[in-house]
C-alpha cells in the first residue's frame, strides 16, 4: 500500500470524471508521483504533440509517502509536455494540497482534452465533478482561493489553481497551491490554462493505508530524528534557502545581470541577515518560517513588505504576510536583474504567486530583456517607455505586473527568454537550457551544476542534481559526471516517493527513504532498488524527450558559459568544461555517443 491504487481520469472535452484502478505493475517500476505520472504520460500521448493542444495531457500525481507522517511527506507533482520547453515537464510542489489529494483517495489525476468553457474540478473523496468557473476565470490565485472556499462553505478545501498568466498563455505559468506554493517550472500552468481548467479544489478524509505500519512508523521515527539533529536542517529552519546568497556571492557562482557577472555587490541586502534585520523605518521583512504538510524542516519564509515601500504604499491588499524570498527568487528578482531592494523583490515574488508564474523564468526573461536593452536591441519604443536598466526596482515591479496580466511589453517577457531573444535577433542572450532559464548557480564556478543544467530532462534546473559539495570543493571536472548522474537518479526517486528533496540537504539518507518506503509499500524496497528506480525514471524522461524530437544537441549551455571566462571569484578565467564532461556522462549512463539509452541499458532497467 502507500498507494491508494486509484486514478481519477477527467475528460475535459466530454466533461466526465471516472475512476480507474492504478496500474500496480507500473507502480512497482516507477514508484509514484514524478515517475509514475511520466509513465502514464509516455503511454498515453504522442510526445510530438503541441503542448497546448487538447491532445496533450496533464497528470497531477502524489507519491506513496504523500499524506503520511514521513517528514516532508506532502509533495505532489504536475507532469505534462512543457509549454516553455517542448520537453518533459515535471514540477514538484509542497504546501497542503498534495496531502489532501492523497487523503481523498487518489494517486493520480489525469486531465485530457479541453473544456469548451472554463471549469474547475471539485473533489470530495470519491465524488469528483467539473463545475463552471464563471466568476473565477480572469481572476488571480489570491482572489479565487477564498472564493472557492466560500462557494462550498468549507475553509478546509485545499486548492491548486492558475492565475491570469496561465490563462493568457505565459509560457512559464505555474500551478499555485495554498496561495504561495507552486509547481513552478516549465509551463505546467500554461498547459492547465490551455485546457480551460482554472483550479482543482479537494477535500479528503480517507487517510492513507500502509503495508506494514509498525515497520513504517519505526523507520519514519529514525528518519525524522536524523533531520532533527542535523546542523544543515537547523540552518534551513533558521535561515531558509536564502542562506546560499552569501555563499555563492563569496564564491563567484551567483548569476548577476544575466550571467555577465558572477558576484553581486548588493547580495548583502538580499541575504538571510538582511531579511531578519529592521530597515531604516524599523520594519523587518521576515515574519516567521513556514512548513509544508508533514514537514519538520520548515525552510519556507513568510514575509511582510514595509507599508511605506513604494511597491505597496498605495496597495493595502499587499500589506499582508505571504510567501517571501527564497534563494532562487532572491537571485531571479534580485541579482539577475541587478536589483538590491529586498522589498521590491518580495513584492515581485508576491505578484508571481498571485498571477501564477515561475519567478525564476520571469526573472531570467526580464534579465534577458534588460541585456537586450543594454545592447540597444530594444528601446523604450518596445518596452512601452519603461527604462529597463539594471537595478531599476520600479521596472521590476511594473514588469512583474504586466507579465502576470499579459499586458504591454510584459507579453513579450511572458514568452520566456528563448523566444524573446530570438524575436529581437539576439538568441545568445538567453541564459537557458532547452528553453528553460537558469537557476541561481553559474556553470563556470560550479562545473557540476553546469553539467546538471545541460543534461536536465526538463531544461536548466538546480533541483535535478546535487553537485553542491563537489562544486564547492573543486572546479576539477573528473568526478562531476558520476556525481551528477548518481544524484540525478536519487533525486528522481525521492521525487517519486512523495518526499521533499531538501531532506537530502538536511540529514536524510538513501537508507531513510528506502526503509520508509519498505514500511509503506509492498514489494520490498531497499537502497539498491531505490537507486535503480531513479535511474529508470531518468531514462524514461530521456526517452520522452528523444521521442519529442530533442537530441544530444539540446544538452548544451549558452555560449556565454561555454566561451566567456568567469570574470571573478574562485573560477576567474574559467569557462564550462561541458565538452569534456558530457561524453563521460553519456558513457556512465549507458547511452550511445549521441545520447540515446542503449538497448542493453533499457534491458537492464526492465524498459525494453
Amino acid at each position, binding site marked *: 500500500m502507500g498507494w491508494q491504487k486509484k486514478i481519477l481520469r477527467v475528460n475535459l472535452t466530454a466533461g466526465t470524471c471516472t475512476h480507474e484502478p492504478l496500474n500496480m505493475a507500473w507502480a512497482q517500476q516507477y514508484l509514484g508521483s514524478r515517475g509514475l505520472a511520466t509513465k502514464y504520460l509516455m503511454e498515453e500521448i504522442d510526445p510530438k504533440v503541441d503542448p497546448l493542444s487538447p491532445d496533450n495531457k496533464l497528470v497531477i500525481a502524489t507519491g506513496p509517502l504523500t499524506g503520511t507522517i514521513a517528514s516532508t511527506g506532502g509533495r505532489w507533482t504536475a507532469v505534462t509536455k512543457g509549454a516553455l520547453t517542448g520537453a518533459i515537464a515535471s514540477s514538484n510542489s509542497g504546501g497542503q494540497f498534495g496531502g489532501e489529494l492523497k487523503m481523498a483517495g487518489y494517486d493520480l489525476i489525469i486531465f485530457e482534452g479541453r473544456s469548451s468553457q472554463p471549469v474547475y474540478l471539485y473533489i470530495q473523496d470519491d465524488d469528483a465533478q467539473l463545475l463552471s468557473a464563471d466568476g473565477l476565470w480572469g481572476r488571480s490565485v489570491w482572489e479565487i482561493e477564498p472564493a472557492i472556499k466560500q462557494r462550498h462553505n468549507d475553509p478546509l478545501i485545499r486548492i491548486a489553481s492558475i492565475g491570469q498568466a496561465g490563462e493568457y498563455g505565459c509560457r512559464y505559468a505555474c500551478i499555485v497551491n495554498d496561495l504561495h506554493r507552486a509547481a513552478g517550472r516549465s509551463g505546467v500552468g500554461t498547459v492547465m490554462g490551455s485546457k480551460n481548467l482554472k483550479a482543482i479544489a479537494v477535500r479528503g478524509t480517507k487517510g492513507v493505508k500502509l503495508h506494514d505500519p509498525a515497520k513504517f512508523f519505526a523507520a519514519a521515527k529514525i528518519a525524522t530524528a536524523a533531520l532533527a539533529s542535523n*546542523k*544543515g536542517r*537547523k*540552518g534551513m529552519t*533558521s*535561515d531558509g*534557502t*536564502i*542562506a*546560499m546568497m*552569501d*555563499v555563492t556571492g*563569496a*564564491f563567484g557562482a551567483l548569476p548577476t545581470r544575466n550571467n555577465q557577472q558572477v558576484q553581486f555587490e548588493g547580495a548583502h541586502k538580499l541575504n538571510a*541577515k538582511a531579511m531578519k534585520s529592521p530597515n531604516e523605518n524599523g520594519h523587518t521583512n521576515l515574519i516567521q518560517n513556514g512548513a509544508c504538510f508533514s514537514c519538520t524542516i520548515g525552510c519556507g519564509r513568510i514575509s511582510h513588505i514595509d507599508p511605506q515601500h513604494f511597491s505597496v504604499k498605495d496597495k493595502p491588499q499587499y500589506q499582508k504576510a505571504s510567501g517571501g524570498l*527564497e*534563494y*532562487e527568487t532572491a537571485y531571479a528578482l534580485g541579482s539577475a536583474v541587478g536589483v538590491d531592494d529586498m522589498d521590491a523583490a518580495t513584492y515581485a515574488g508576491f505578484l508571481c504567486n498571485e498571477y501564477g508564474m515561475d519567478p525564476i523564468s520571469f526573472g531570467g526573461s526580464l534579465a534577458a530583456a534588460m541585456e537586450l536593452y543594454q545592447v540597444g536591441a530594444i528601446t523604450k519604443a518596445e518596452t512601452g517607455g519603461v527604462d529597463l536598466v539594471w537595478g531599476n526596482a520600479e521596472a521590476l515591479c511594473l514588469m512583474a505586473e504586466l507579465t502576470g496580466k499579459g499586458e504591454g511589453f510584459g507579453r513579450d517577457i511572458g514568452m520566456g527568454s528563448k523566444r524573446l531573444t530570438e524575436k529581437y535577433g539576439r538568441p545568445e542572450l538567453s541564459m537557458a537550457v532547452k528553453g528553460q532559464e537558469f537557476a*541561481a548557480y553559474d556553470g563556470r564556478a560550479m562545473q557540476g551544476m553546469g553539467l546538471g543544467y545541460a543534461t536536465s530532462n526538463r531544461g536548466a534546473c*538546480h*533541483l535535478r542534481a*546535487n553537485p*553542491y*559539495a563537489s562544486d*564547492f*570543493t*573543486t572546479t576539477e571536472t573528473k568526478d562531476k559526471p558520476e556525481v551528477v548522474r548518481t544524484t540525478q537518479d536519487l533525486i528522481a526517486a525521492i521525487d517519486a516517493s512523495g518526499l521533499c*528533496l*531538501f531532506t*537530502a*540537504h538536511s540529514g536524510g539518507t538513501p537508507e531513510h527513504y528506502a526503509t520508509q518506503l519498505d514500511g509503506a509499500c509492498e514489494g520490498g524496497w531497499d537502497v539498491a532498488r531505490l537507486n535503480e528506480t531513479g535511474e529508470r525514471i531518468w531514462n524514461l524522461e530521456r526517452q520522452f524527450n528523444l521521442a519529442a524530437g530533442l537530441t544530444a544537441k539540446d544538452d548544451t549551455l549558452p555560449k556565454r558559459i561555454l566561451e566567456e571566462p568567469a570574470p571573478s*571569484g*574562485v573560477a576567474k578565467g574559467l569557462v564550462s568544461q561541458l565538452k569534456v564532461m558530457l561524453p563521460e556522462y553519456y558513457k556512465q549512463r549507458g547511452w550511445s555517443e549521441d545520447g540515446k539509452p542503449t538497448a542493453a541499458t533499457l534491458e537492464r532497467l526492465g524498459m525494453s
Partner: protein
Amino acid sequence: MQVNVKLLGWMREFLGDGIAHFDDKDFELAEGHTLGELINTLGFRTETPFMTMQNGDRVVDSVLDTTVIKDGDKIVFVPPLKGG
C-alpha cells in the same frame, strides 16, 4: 596582527562549545598562525566538509595546516550548503 573572520550560511552552528556565535568578527592572532590553528580554535575541525577562503581564494583542506595567515587577511568559512 588582526584578521577578519566571516562565517557564511549556517557555519555558526559549527562553532565549538564555549565559542560565542558570530557572523563577522576581527581576531587578534600571533604572527605565524596557520589556518589550521584558527580552525582548531574555532572548534569545527571535524565538521567536514566545509570550505575555507583566504582573501577570495579557495584553500584546499590538505594545506590548511601549512597556510600562514597574514595581517589584514579576510578569512571566510563556508558550510556544506546545498539546494535552494
